[in-house]
């Protein structure tokens, strides 16, 4: 019984993360990481790694729907892919060297800056 309740909770977190990741084209990790840490008691670094493994298939599905609705700019995407693939490799490499607190700090600051840029 308890195991089922836990599974339902996890699936519900997944639905929310998938919904917002699809709606905003990002932010799945923003929901998944804090949810895993605070609701499921997952270690911060494992939560980060697990979040990427979840958002990968979700982003593939969302990309297909965006593509079908003509919201795909391949030229820009390919340019971004080059830069972000290199960056992604660096990010994953240094993840194990960062403390959970440092990760949170970087996370919070980058969110606030981006939010202000969008609102004003």
């Amino acid at each position: 019984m308890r195991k089922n309740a836990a599974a339902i909770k996890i699936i519900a977190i997944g639905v929310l993360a998938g919904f917002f990741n699809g709606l905003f084209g990002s932010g799945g990790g923003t929901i998944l990481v804090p949810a895993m840490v605070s609701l499921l008691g997952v270690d911060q670094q494992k939560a980060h790694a697990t979040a990427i493994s979840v958002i990968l298939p979700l982003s593939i599905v969302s990309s297909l729907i965006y593509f079908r609705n003509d919201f795909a700019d391949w030229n820009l995407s390919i340019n971004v892919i080059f830069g972000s693939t290199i960056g992604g490799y660096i990010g994953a490499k240094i993840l194990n060297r960062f403390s959970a607190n440092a990760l949170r700090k970087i996370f919070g600051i980058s969110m606030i800056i981006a939010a202000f840029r969008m609102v004003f």
Partner: protein
Amino acid sequence: MLIFVVSILSGIISGMGIGGGTILIPALIILFNISQQIAQGVNLISFIPTAAVAVITHIRNKNILLKLSVLLICGGLFGAVLGSILASSISSPVLRKLFGIFLFIMGIYEIISKKKK
């Protein structure tokens, strides 16, 4: 050149499991004057190879909790379809405003939760 620098920075953040799109999407809109949906689409598409590289590295470092990942994906796929269809059916300025609000709430949450710890 500028797009390359922005992409590397957002890629590093993505690779650490943090939404790189939070930086990439506003940057794309400001630099290239594109619609909210196009910017989001670029982020989704470009995230795929970035994430694939990061996932491989994380598997090697044994950082991924597989059972948890599978359950989250089960729910997540359903949510992803709903969210993507909704994003495709609302106007770009409305979606942009919603995006800004979403980021703001998430940023505030992050600051609050940091204080608790």
